[in-house]
């Protein structure tokens, strides 16, 4: 079975400071990992994903994430937070199994960027 944990329900950060949203996962084999963002009353927007290769993945809106196999983590980061980054962030994992389509999501982390 695959699972994702986002240990923080809420993260507060001052505008201009670096931000980190944490994600750890459990899956057999090498995972496919995703980050999505959800603005109020909207669907999820894709930010970035890790499939293979370079452990540092760059995505939309200046976000990046680092895959750490030994710590089974995929934390989302941004060097300088904007007020407009305030949203709900979801981490997701899928096992690299043929015929496996199911994406398992974490419970989400609410990011608030304070002006």
């Amino acid at each position, binding site marked *: 079975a695959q699972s994702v944990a986002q240990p923080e329900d809420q993260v507060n950060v001052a505008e201009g400071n670096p931000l980190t949203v944490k994600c750890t996962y459990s899956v057999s084999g090498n995972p496919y990992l995703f980050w999505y963002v959800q603005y109020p*009353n909207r*669907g*999820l927007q*894709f930010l970035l994903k890790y499939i293979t290769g370079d452990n540092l993945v760059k995505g939309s809106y200046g976000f990046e994430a680092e895959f750490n196999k030994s710590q089974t983590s995929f934390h989302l980061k941004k060097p300088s937070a904007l007020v407009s980054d305030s949203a709900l962030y*979801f981490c997701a994992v899928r096992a690299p*199994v043929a015929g496996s*389509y*199911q994406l398992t999501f974490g419970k989400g982390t609410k990011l608030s960027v304070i002006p």
Partner: protein
Amino acid sequence: DVKVTQSSRYLVKRTGEKVFLECVQDMDHENMFWYRQDPGLGLRLIYFSYDVKMKEKGDIPEGYSVSREKKERFSLILESASTNQTSMYLCASSLPQGFDTQYFGPGTRLLVL
């Protein structure tokens, strides 16, 4: 750009009604998914489809059914709506590979009274 549309943004129904939620994607994706989103629970998969007329149960299929008669359209059906089905429903689509990105629609917020 991939576009996934859902038939309603907000819906109010009464207990016992049959409810249809429609989802259409315009990118010829093989896979389509229905999730429900509840505070503190994240997204949970209800059903998915990897081809026309093909479907598989997700984590919480009880009380729901689905229909996929055309590749671009995936419908979620609540046979007899109940108050515990009040939720945000999200549709997604993707290409068939496991590493392919799922693209989401705007969601339907359903209230069952």
